[in-house]
């Protein structure tokens, strides 16, 4: 898990990489798009914005091919994160969704407004609902070595 308190920090560290540059581009576009609708930039990522009450899930969710990235757009968004090997898989991994659900609990990470959190693929996470907060949720490809597409 990597937490960037500001967009500037994120850009400084990752901005030179195509998929992370596109993450920034998505965050710029998101305010102008329909909330609750998934958009994409090339093959790199999909993203959806909304209140955290809409983005929250009941279970910790692990992914293998796409990082969960959460950017707070209103308030301090809370994200529960746990290493996969510290929680119990409650479902098999699903190729169709790139999701595997886990039971157990993790640490709560606070993402300040304007901050960005990247969840690694050896972690499971879930956005915690809070009517006062909103976020952009992205699924950013883990591809890098074999990524050259649109």
């Amino acid at each position, binding site marked *: 898990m990597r937490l960037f308190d500001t967009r500037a920090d994120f850009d400084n560290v990752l901005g030179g990489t195509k998929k992370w540059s596109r993450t920034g581009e998505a965050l710029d576009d998101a305010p102008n798009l329909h909330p609750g609708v998934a*958009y994409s930039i090339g093959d790199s990522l999909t993203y959806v914005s909304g209140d955290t009450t809409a983005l929250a899930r009941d279970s910790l969710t692990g992914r293998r091919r796409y990082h969960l990235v959460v950017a707070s757009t209103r308030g301090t968004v809370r994200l529960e994160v746990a290493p996969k090997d510290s929680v119990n898989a409650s479902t098999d991994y699903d190729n169709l969704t790139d999701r595997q659900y886990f039971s157990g609990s993790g640490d709560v990470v606070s993402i300040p407004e304007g901050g960005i959190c990247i969840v690694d693929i050896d972690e499971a996470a879930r956005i915690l609902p809070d009517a006062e907060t909103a976020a952009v949720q992205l699924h950013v490809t883990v591809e890098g070595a*074999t990524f050259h597409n649109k």
Partner: protein
Amino acid sequence: MTDTHDWENPRLTGRNRLAARAYFFGYATPALASTHSRTLSRGFVDLSGPWQFRLFDHPRRVPRDFAATPQAGWDVIQVPHLWQMDGYGDLQYTDEGYPFPIEPPHVPADNPTGAYQRIITLTAPAEGERVVLRFDGVESYAEIFCNGAFVGMTKGSRLAAEFDVTAHIVTGDNLFSVKVLQFSDATYIEDQDMWWASGIFRDVYLVTRPAARLLDFFVRTHRTDGGAAEVTLTAWAEGSDRIEWSISDAGVELGSAALEPGGSATITLPDAHFWNPEDPHLHDMLISVSADGDGAVDHVPHRLGLAEVTIVDGLLHLNGSYFSMHGVNRHDHDDHSGRAVGMARVRRDLELMKLHNINAVRTAHYPNDPRFYEMCDELGLLVVAETDLESHGFANVGDISRITDDPEWETAYVDRIERHVLAQRNHASIVMWSLGNESGYGCNIPAMYARAKELDPTRPVHYEEDRNAEHVDVISTMYSRVSQMNDFGEHPHPKPRIICEYGHSMGNGPGGLSEYQAVFNRHDSIQGHFIWEWCDHGLAATTEDGREFHKYGGDFGDYPNNSNFCIDGMVFPWQEPSPGLTEYKQVISPVLVDYADGVLTVTNRRWFTTLEDVAVTLETLHDGVVADVEVFRPGAVAPGESWTTPVELRLAPVGETRCTARVTSAHAASWTAPMRELGRYDFAVHSAPRRSIAPTTQPLEVRAELTTLRLATAGSELVFDLLSGDITSWVAGGRPVLVSPPRLGFWKPLVDNHQQECDDLWTPNHIEIMQTSTRSVTWRADDGDVVVEVTQRIAPPVLDFGMHATLTWRFTPDGRADVRVSGTPYGSYDDIIPRIGLSFEVPRATRAVEWYGRGPGENYPDSAAANTVGRWSSDVDAMFTPYVVPQDCANRGDVRWVALTSPHGDGLLVTRPDNSEGVPFAFSAWPHTAADIDAARHRTDLVVRDTVTVNINDAVLGLGSNSWGSEVLDAYRVRFEAFDFAFSLRPLAAGNLTATAASITKEN
């Protein structure tokens, strides 16, 4: 010399070109009109055929008197053609790169120029008649002359161009001269992924239009809530003040109306028979234009499909019904003539699509011959009708939108959608317009959209790079991964969604189509998916000894090139389906069958028609052999509905019981005979315990020498090398069983869909050149058997990771060799590898193959839907799929046993040993070695060896489609990690395969 040319001026798209219009022909009588044979239309003169031709390396080298004087000594070529295909100039293939420096609108000064001449004997037109010269396709810039006079100029290679030549036609011989430039400013927006080639590549002809004539028409359908069709015609005419219009069906007139030129009229058809891709019913429409006092003199027929596309609550509907498109992207391609593709080949393409359950085609990335759309109307294919636009090459300079966002180019961009819509808008099959492909985004896109909607308000408009569907009516992506499509489905856009390209079919593959389809089927908002692409663009060539192969980028000395990136279709260049198309057919089968808990369920996945024509043949298989057959007819099951029936299958008392459901349609059409298979499914039903093996009393003779171990039993002798750990000889019945030893390996010939993994993972880690080092070999007698344990290190040079492997051979007195193979990795590499398995060679005589497993066709872990588990037979040569670029092929999965035999019946049987029973494996067998296949760049590079390479694999990496798209899905990944598996090898004596197979399936 001036530096300003018409061919370097994007504001100028043509000179004297007539306004675009619908493709139609006028006939002198209704009877002639009913033939729909354009050669019988008024004044039709086919100009396709022989033309005088010469290629110049500069436009100004064309002789000054070219327009007016027949040139002596020129070659004769056949139009339509691409001159490069006839040996003039240079072929070049690039995916997106322009073959010249980017400096729009400038193109090379030494612009290859084809000069064409043809003399036609004609009669001068009568008073009031107009003679129109039409080109259906010229690439990329043409100047046209008639009898020395300049007629006009056109750009837009795949857009029809018409010129009024009335004033130039004389009675007698008429000289037509056409100067065609390979490159023009238009080339910057015709940068599709295909061969750079040029010429008059579609038909050329003359038509004569009478004094009173139809100019154009636009017919559209509205379906009322009550199921009636309100058909509205707007028609334009000249020399007349009255237009008659009628609609008939099977010779019965259903309605008629009259209208004034420029006016509209509506005919209402109650209880109308609407058009859809499953029931492409066409009505006959006739438009007749009257001359003052002469009655009707211009009769224009049209095959009318009653079709209306609407968007309701963010979903596409056709005639009020939801639908989804199972599609493919199609380029024009013929392996002998390139894009100058004959209509017989086009029709065969479309029929093949229908035969493979495809219901939609995207005209990637340009309009087709106008007869293509007529065929789609007739056969029943939905068309995403794309216009001739792609400026992809600007991506190479980091600015793909450069001219798309430049108002200087608006005229050119808008011209392309305008001419396209006007030409095709009367076709029922066209479900949406597409503004082009991979041209970035900018001000010219909304301008095109606005013009499209102005000319046809009835149809949605698509353009993928309007990424968020800011303007267009359908949101679209390409190559989005399975889980990304699921994201879109879970969070749908207010507009309908399609994926206009996916499943990149380069070489062997694509894999993962079942998972894509599961997601598409799950979400209503995803209403179309289009495989990239239909056909390989290989060009036929012949070796000196007469063997055919197919060329691709670089084979003509072209540079830069994108090599075999154009060999990316589901159909081979010789127009036969690849295994990928067979897989796609199954994945999109319109009838879904399930069998569980004694109940057969048949679900109608069509959108418009019932299952009245469908039969399901259910075969019960005992250990792969058909034991019982029963046929079910679900009847008139409505779209989306299911039919169920209890079915009691007779179970095998010993061994495996499975069932296979074959779905057929009794429907017959011009493109299909009845009993066409729509799909096939198989299900595991039951497994009964097998009996134990009867112990053998035959002793095993053992003779150990310095570095060898000789094992003999009745009729069989095996020699083991105690240094290398190899079986160096195995003879049974006087014939060799193996000719090279089984060896553990992780490599197999590279498939195109793994090229990126190879470049970024395997080659840097030298996976393909791992070295085997045998560290120890020990042996012992064990309860009548002999056990040999071999420890090996398999690792790449240079690096410090690898696999510690142990192969434990157990040789039994009945002549069998069981081997258990385990591996433990060391070092840092833990990513994917092509396979884990054993490979060896057998004599070429041993090339008949019989197996109990998934077949009969090639299949891989992520491309296995089209093949079912059963007992199959073939031979090694027939199983080798002739990919244009040789690569791994011939895999069969879910295998219980495989036998390779000679014509005498002797050979080898491979199974799992007793303790691994129930764990299927995969095998492939080639008449070449892996190294042969990897080294070959064309099919004819391969020479059949006198041995057969056999691979028996515990795990095979899925195919994916990452030649441009999806990596192998996680579930189909094979990683460089610990493994443990076993095989059993048994020599077969002549004629005992049946008995041996029976013993291993029933008595193991």
